């Protein structure tokens, strides 16, 4: 989806990042003192999500740049840290929880990079968590077309040995990153899904072959990689479709260069359903056999998703027996029945992932 309007917080009008983006986008810009009217206008439109994807708001992150992933209590979280660089996405996936997460949903890019750098310096100087990423509230690489954010982050992480940055994307905006001195402190990662799901549920994303080709380029330049099968969508014939993608993955990428692979079945807050029904009239993904999970999100019926996970895990294990494989937000029962062990058997999920990051990214611990 193309950005057609630029709003600028008056307080950041003279920031270098703002000036760079203004020159790059060359759009009529609205300088505003407060975003309330703009937010109200988006919220009142027929489709706030569509409207929010066309408007870019350049502003400051007035909160914390580094924050914990908002996991829930019952299900096992990996304790990921988020580098909060912006919100929302120019691509348009039916299952995207951001459609109902922000009120209203709007593209925001935080331009107070001095504050971000200061936050990172502080983070590195303390005993930082090992894993941090920018792809939680936005796609990590969509911003590359308007500002070279990753260049700055990759070089900043390359100069330290205690922490690793994960750039998670569905784009292939990587060519300009290939020759950076990354020192294996940046993990390039891609969300993967079946060809059918990409075609029917993801608008504006790169194809799976293109994503894998981009990953292969990064691998050739020494970047460690990660992959996320999230959301896994259950539909008739899905097992064979996922197997095909998994085979493609390991034909293209060396398993021992993969830091981790996550698995997470489609789950959503109930208020996402009417949004998907309205915006993706042909989509059937919200009509799976869902029940309300303990965290209030709709999840596939547990025996069903365990059976499905078992199939996916066995496909991956057959091709990459040693790769670090984990579930995003599942409980011990799912772990035990699908992977054969529980996170605490191996030092807990954060510890498992940290250990893999230390091993693959040559961190000091």
């Amino acid at each position: 989806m193309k950005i057609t309007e630029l709003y600028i917080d008056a307080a950041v009008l003279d920031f270098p990042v703002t000036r760079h983006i203004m020159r790059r986008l060359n759009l009529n810009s609205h300088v505003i003192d407060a975003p309330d009217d703009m937010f109200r206008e988006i919220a009142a439109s027929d489709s706030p999500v569509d409207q929010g994807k066309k408007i870019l708001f350049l502003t400051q992150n007035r909160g914390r740049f580094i924050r914990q992933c908002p996991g829930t209590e019952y299900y096992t979280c990996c304790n990921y840290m988020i580098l909060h660089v912006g919100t929302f996405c120019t691509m348009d996936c039916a299952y995207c929880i951001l459609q109902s997460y922000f009120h209203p949903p709007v593209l925001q890019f935080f331009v107070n990079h001095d504050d971000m750098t200061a936050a990172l310096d502080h983070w590195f100087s303390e005993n930082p968590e090992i894993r941090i990423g920018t792809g939680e509230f936005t796609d990590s690489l969509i911003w590359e077309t308007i500002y070279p954010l990753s260049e700055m982050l990759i070089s900043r992480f390359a100069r330290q040995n205690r922490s690793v940055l994960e750039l998670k994307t569905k784009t292939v905006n990587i060519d300009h990153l290939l020759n950076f001195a990354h020192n294996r402190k940046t993990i390039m990662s891609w969300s993967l899904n079946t060809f059918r799901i990409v075609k029917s549920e993801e608008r504006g994303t790169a194809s799976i072959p293109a994503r894998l080709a981009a990953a292969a380029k990064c691998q050739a330049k020494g970047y460690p990689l990660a992959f996320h099968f999230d959301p896994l969508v259950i539909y008739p014939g899905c097992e064979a479709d996922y197997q095909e993608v998994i085979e493609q993955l390991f034909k293209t990428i060396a398993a021992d260069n993969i830091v981790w692979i996550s698995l997470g079945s489609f789950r959503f807050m109930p208020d996402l359903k009417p949004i998907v029904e309205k915006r993706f009239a042909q989509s059937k993904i919200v009509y799976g056999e869902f029940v309300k999970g303990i965290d209030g999100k709709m999840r596939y019926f547990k025996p069903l998703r365990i059976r499905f996970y078992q199939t996916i895990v066995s496909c991956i294990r057959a091709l990459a027996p040693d790769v670090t494989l984990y579930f995003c937000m599942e409980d011990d029962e799912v772990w035990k029945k699908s992977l054969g062990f529980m996170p605490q058997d191996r030092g807990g999920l954060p510890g498992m992932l940290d250990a893999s990051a230390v091993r693959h990214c040559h961190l000091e611990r």
Partner: protein
Amino acid sequence: MRLSVDSTDIRQIDISDIDCNDTDFRITTDNRSRAIPDDLFESIRNVGLLTPPVLFQRPGTPEPGKSFSIICGFRRIAACIRLGSPTIAARVMPADSNELALTLLSIADNTSIRELNVVEQALAAAKLSGFVSDPTVLFREAATAGLILNPGLLAKLLKINTAFDELKDLLAADIIPLSIGLELTTLEKPDALGLARLFEKLNPTLNHQKEIIRLAKEIARLKGCGVGDILDDNPVRAIVTDTDMDRNRKIKRLRACLRQMRYPEIVRFEEQFLDHLTQLHLPDTIRLIPPAEFEGTVFSIQGRFTCREEFETMMQALDRLHGHPAFNRILDKNFENH
């Protein structure tokens, strides 16, 4: 915008001069079927017309001819026509009357004697919306005619006003509630009509109606067909047309049937659980409760007893669960191949 009938004289008008086909100011849903309530007809026949209808002579209409439009009193005039009255006593509004004011008068004439049904409210709201675009002004004007609106209700009523006639009839008769009517307006006419007729026949509760609509819509989306096709599907039709089954049982069976079509694996798992439970032969005093939706991991057992003997019997029954294959399968929570 106010208009009073007080200043208008009552005139004797030839009935043949009244254009009964002009429905611009008609609010009453009964008029769609041209029904004249028996008590009204009898009253006019016995004691005459107590309240004169209100008419309006449109500017520029030729005289003589059908030059009078009815503002209030469609049924009274219909009764007089049926009684064969050649003339009728009526108030005639001035030719320069504002049409919004006349519309408000027609609404007030109805709201002053009864509560409008939802279709009448929808029609009244739609008529007023044709004259007033500012919602605040619209709500104020409507209130002067006894029609209380708010933004949410107005949006709903305008949607209902565009519904097809059969659905409006069911809404007006209060067979279909407003929230269900709104749901049905999102469907193709045959699909909506199929559901509406089903509800008319079985009269399920509001929650059951919502559940049936949701399930039928989602099954249709999954199968790539219309809701009507789901209702015509053999198991559903067999339940609805079964003459030996009472209404409550039909509703229960219908809901179960739709749920099975929508969630085949969940229902299969629940049946598997019940099958294992039956094999345990637990006494009525013991209840084995699985985790909600089988999502959590905590099973619980509830037991009732009134004396030591019953307690011991209960404990013996619980003891038999140890190593029972069906109990183990319940705890495993795995799908079993049939």
